[in-house]
Structures are given as structure tokens and as C-alpha cells.
């Protein structure tokens, strides 16, 4: 009887499993295989043998190292700042009564706006050409500073725009989730704390933050993963030749290896993708370990 039931269960699961195997498990395994095949030829579909050469090549490629460095800087800067900033905005939204819906809508607008359109606007804001300054540069010169080309200029300026852009684009979703998390904290806890004479900072750290910690944790994890997979925003700002701009990311490097000007190297691309996978996995595991201590699930 149990055997028969098992068979039935598998039968019901079959359609979903089939799709999973064809479109998920097989490609992932294939990426592993590609990454180990040395001297793979795209046309003849043959390789000269198995080994770790692809990894060694990628890890010694200056473009890849630059991409790793860029990606890490973006992650380290944007994840904490965007989460913290979103929390501040959500707290503010939660504490106002009037016009709350209006502000919520305004804060959510970037989320529904097209990435490339936003990129264009950022170009206009930050660009500097021989003939004109962008709005930001006008402001800088107005306050007596030296105008900077944020799009084609020094590395720090480009990184600043990049991070600014990423934070701006991920903020709405975080604000949305945090506002609803804050609203779902039962008011009686605040009343209890108030009667006991608790200061607002202590209320925030001891009550609010633990109560919304699952949402914060979710945002941190997805934020890390999202930032490590950063690519399209860089394209929106700096165009498709990211290596030349010095603003490539790991995913950008993978893409370039597959289809870019120097494309046609699926083995190198796979090796880079595996390295990214290992990095994300490690960071996520660390996150999970940290969360065990600090996240409260009701």
C-alpha cells in the first residue's frame, strides 16, 4: 500500500520534476561540466580534457579581478546603506498620519520605472561634456567646487554614481516591505513599553527591530544576492563596454565571455559563474549563521 502510494506521488510530481530537471538541474550540472572542460571549442563541441585551468585563467584575468573588486565594493556599500535608509524612511512613513499614502506612492515609483529610462535620467543628472554640465555638476560649481565627470571620469566618481543608482533603485521595494512589517507590529507592545517609561531609542532597538527582524533579514539576504548579480544597472549607466569603463561586474564578465566582443568562451564564463556561485553561497551561509542569533520568528 505504501509502495503504491509512493508511486502515485511520484507520478503526480513528474510534470514539475521534468521541468525542473530539464531547465534547472541539467543546466547547472552542465555549467559545472563546462567549467572543467579545458580548451573547449564552441564549433566542434570538443575539449582537450578535464581540469582546473579555466578557473586559473579566470582568476588571473585582470578584467575578472576588476569585476570582482567592483562587485564587492557595490555590495558592501549598497546593501547596508539601502537597508538602513529604507528602515529610516519606513519609520518616518509609519509615524505620519496625513499624506501617508501619497508618500508611499512616491517612494514606490522608482520600482515601477524602467531601469534604462532611469539610467538615462542619471546620465543627464551626472554627465559632463565639453559644452555642458549636468545638474549635479551645476550644483557642485555653484557651491564653489570643481565639476567632475561622473560618467566618464575618475573611478571613485563612477563608483559613486553606480552605488547611488543601485541604492535608489532597490530602495522602494525595501521601504514597501519594511512599512508593512512595521505596521504589523501589535500596538499593545508599544503601549506596554510606554507605560513602563521606555525611551524611543530603546523601544526601537529592543522591540521594533526584533519584531521586524525576519523582514530585515530577508532584505539583507536578497540584497546581498541581488547586488552580487548586479549587471543591468551598470549597462544602463556606462554602456555595454563595461571593461573599458572599468565598471564591469562579475555577471557582466560572464556575459562578456559568452557573447561580448571577446565572447565565445563558455568554459571561462562557466568558471566565473561557479566562482560567483561559491561567493554568494558563502555569504548567504554566513548570513544564516548570524541570523540564528538575532532574528526572532514568532
Amino acid at each position, binding site marked *: 500500500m505504501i509502495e503504491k502510494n509512493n508511486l502515485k506521488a511520484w507520478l503526480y510530481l513528474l510534470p514539475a520534476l521534468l521541468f525542473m530537471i530539464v531547465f534547472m538541474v541539467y543546466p547547472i550540472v552542465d555549467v559545472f561540466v563546462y567549467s572543467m572542460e579545458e580548451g573547449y571549442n564552441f564549433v566542434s563541441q570538443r575539449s582537450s580534457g578535464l581540469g582546473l585551468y579555466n578557473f586559473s585563467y579566470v582568476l588571473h584575468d585582470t578584467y575578472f579581478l576588476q569585476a570582482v573588486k567592483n562587485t564587492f565594493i557595490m555590495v558592501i556599500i549598497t546593501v547596508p546603506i539601502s537597508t538602513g535608509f529604507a528602515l529610516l524612511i519606513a519609520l518616518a512613513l509609519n509615524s505620519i498620519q496625513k499624506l501617508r499614502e501619497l508618500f508611499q506612492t512616491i517612494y514606490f515609483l522608482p520600482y515601477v520605472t524602467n531601469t534604462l529610462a532611469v539610467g538615462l535620467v542619471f546620465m543627464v543628472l551626472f554627465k559632463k561634456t565639453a559644452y555642458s554640465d549636468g545638474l549635479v555638476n551645476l550644483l557642485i560649481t555653484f557651491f564653489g567646487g570643481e565639476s567632475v565627470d561622473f560618467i566618464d571620469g575618475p573611478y571613485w566618481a563612477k563608483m559613486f554614481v553606480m552605488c547611488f543608482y543601485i541604492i535608489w533603485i532597490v530602495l522602494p521595494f525595501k521601504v514597501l516591505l519594511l512599512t508593512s512589517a512595521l505596521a504589523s507590529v*501589535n500596538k*499593545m*507592545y508599544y*503601549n*506596554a*513599553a*510606554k*507605560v*513602563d*517609561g*521606555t*525611551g524611543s531609542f*530603546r523601544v526601537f532597538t*529592543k*522591540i521594533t527591530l*526584533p*519584531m521586524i*527582524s525576519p523582514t530585515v533579514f530577508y532584505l539583507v539576504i536578497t540584497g546581498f544576492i541581488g547586488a552580487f548579480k548586479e549587471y543591468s544597472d551598470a549597462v544602463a549607466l556606462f554602456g555595454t563596454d563595461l571593461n573599458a569603463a572599468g565598471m564591469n561586474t562579475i555577471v557582466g564578465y560572464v556575459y562578456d565571455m559568452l557573447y561580448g566582443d571577446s565572447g565565445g568562451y563558455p568554459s571561462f564564463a562557466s568558471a566565473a559563474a561557479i566562482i560567483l556561485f561559491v561567493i554568494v553561497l558563502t555569504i548567504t551561509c554566513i548570513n544564516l549563521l548570524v541570523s540564528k542569533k538575532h532574528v*526572532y520568528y*514568532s
Partner: protein
Amino acid sequence: MKVVLDGLTKIFPPRIGKGKGVTAVKDFTFVIPDGTLVALLGPSGCGKSTMLNMICGLEKPTEGKIFFGNDDVTDLPSELRGVGMVFQNYALYPHMTVYNNIIFPLGNLKGEEKLTKEQMKEKADKVASLVQIEELMARKPGELSGGQQQRVAIARALVKTPRLLLMDEPLSNLDARLRLQTREEIRRIQRETGVTTIFVTHDQEEAMSISDVIVVMKDGELHQCGKPQEVYDDPSNLFVAKFLGTPAINIFEGRVEKEKLMIGDDTVLDVQGARDGAVIVGIRPEGFIYDKDGGLKCALDRVEVMGRDISIVSKNPACEAPVVRSIIDSDERPADDVTTVSFKLRPNKVHLFEPETGARIRFGKGRRIDG
């Protein structure tokens, strides 16, 4: 500490547009003596929780003043009033252990009042032993039963030695057996600490059994206050009489003719000093004496055995409820073939009320018809 409520009124503004708003509490004046256990009693929506919230400072009264001792605390924010509050759903912080919940209020103390960890532990242990939860300190609220959570909530309210302890429906989330036990506990804890305590309840039995003073409220107004027995024996109006007592008081339509009380065609009682006219008659279940010469005649429906007493359930057309409930000694059980039962009445268990206003009409020796 004595608490004085002087003309308290709370009007909640209307939700939409310009309306009149909802008057939750109306001109409430009352003095709570030091060290007493006071029950605010009334049906749901009568404004008792609003009263409590005004006393602890979570709501601001629209009018009137609140004094703690001689201090006017009307405009004092909640955090400076030094009251302990036990919320209806306990409001224990679910992510903290019982111990951390209890010491949470102590962590708010600043300046010279600031306590060391050892002092906090000492206080927490003391209050935990008072409410008997010493062995639960390391647990989280989610791992406790309702009664245990209740104790933790009381401990948290008491740990900062408040001047006043407030409890909002403290027993409503407990099952019947635990409720009996916990109300005794509340009484004991209140006696041991001597803290002035106000608790809100809609359960008259709960209020009568443990409190020193009960305050009966309806529609935001104070109807009567006094010792439980006094209020029960001497209700000031029909609402109070109906609200207190289980089984409930029996209500009849009656009339007074020449100082005699009539129910239907039966003359049931001498009521000296009462004016002629229609009245509402309230008779407590224990106010009936089973007697074949009695004036009040009812059709016997059934007899319910309650052990020491029996309850005679009978019918009378003048009674507001479908049946009349009377409690008499089990020795006086009517014979099986009886169909009509007669009762004499105990005068002190019979209350008369004005039919329109529900105000009490007093009668008895020495009372005269005025005018």
C-alpha cells in the same frame, strides 16, 4: 496611594467629517482609597477600558482631572506616572525570555535610579517568587500557558514597585478553572504588596468575589459604587440590580395599591411608604420562601437540583423572562404532583423601580409618601 478621578470625560472625535463623536466616559467622579482593590464593572463598550487608559496615561481625557495622591497627573505623560499595567492580552514581548520581560521596565530607569545587573536580578527574583514563576525565568512567553503568561505580566507590572496597578480584563483569556484560581492569586498578591489596584471586568462574579470596592458603569457613566455586598443588597437602579447576581434577579411588572405590592392579581408584599402606581419589581432568587400560604403564585415548570439548594423554575405571566428562578433549601422540595407553587417574599430581597427611569423606589418601615 489614593486616586481621585474628578469629572472625567472622554469624547472620541468622529472618524469622518464633523460629527458629534463618541462619548466613551461621561463626567466620571470617583475616589479610590489607598491600598484597595477596585473593580470597574460594566458590560462591553461601557468605557471601562477607556477609563483605565486615561488613568495610565495612554488616553488623554477630554475634560476632568486625575490626581494620584495630591499630584495632578492629568497632563503627565504615561511614562512618568509610575503605574504598572497588565494588558488584556498580556503584551509580553515574545522575543524575550520571561526574565528579560520582567526586568525590561527596570532597564528604563535613568540617572541615580539606574540599577546594576545584580539589583535587577534581586528584584526580578523577588517578584517572581511573589507570583510563583521562579522556574519559568529562562522560557519565552510562547512556551507558557495562559495562566503562566498572566503571572509574568503581573510580575512585569509589579517589578518597578508601581504606585498603582492597573489590570485590563486580567482573567478573560483564562479557562474557567484557572480563572477561579487566578482571581484568588490576584487578591493574595494585592494583599501582600498593598498596592492600590484597579481592574476592569465585565464579569460581575469576578468583580464581587475579590474586590474591596466595585464600580458599576454603563454607557460611560458611573451607576453605583460601594462594597460588593452593599451594591448587591442595595442596588441604586434597575441596571445595577440586573447586572449583579447569578442567577440573575427576577423582574416582574407590578403595581402598588394602598401600600400593597401586586404582581398580576396576587398581593405579594406590604410596601409601606411606596406610592401607588405601576412599578418594576425585582426579586432576587434567594428572596423567595416556598410556602403554600404565600401570595405569589406561579406555575411549576421544573425543579433543578444544585446540591445544598434547589432551584424552582416556574412561570408567571407578569415576569419579564420566560421563567422565574427561585433558590430554596433542598429540604423544602415541592411534592411531585404539585403544579402551582406559592411563595412568600423576603422584603429585603425585593427591590422596586420606576418603570420609566429604572430608578429605585424605596419602601419599608418609617418611610412615608412624600407630599
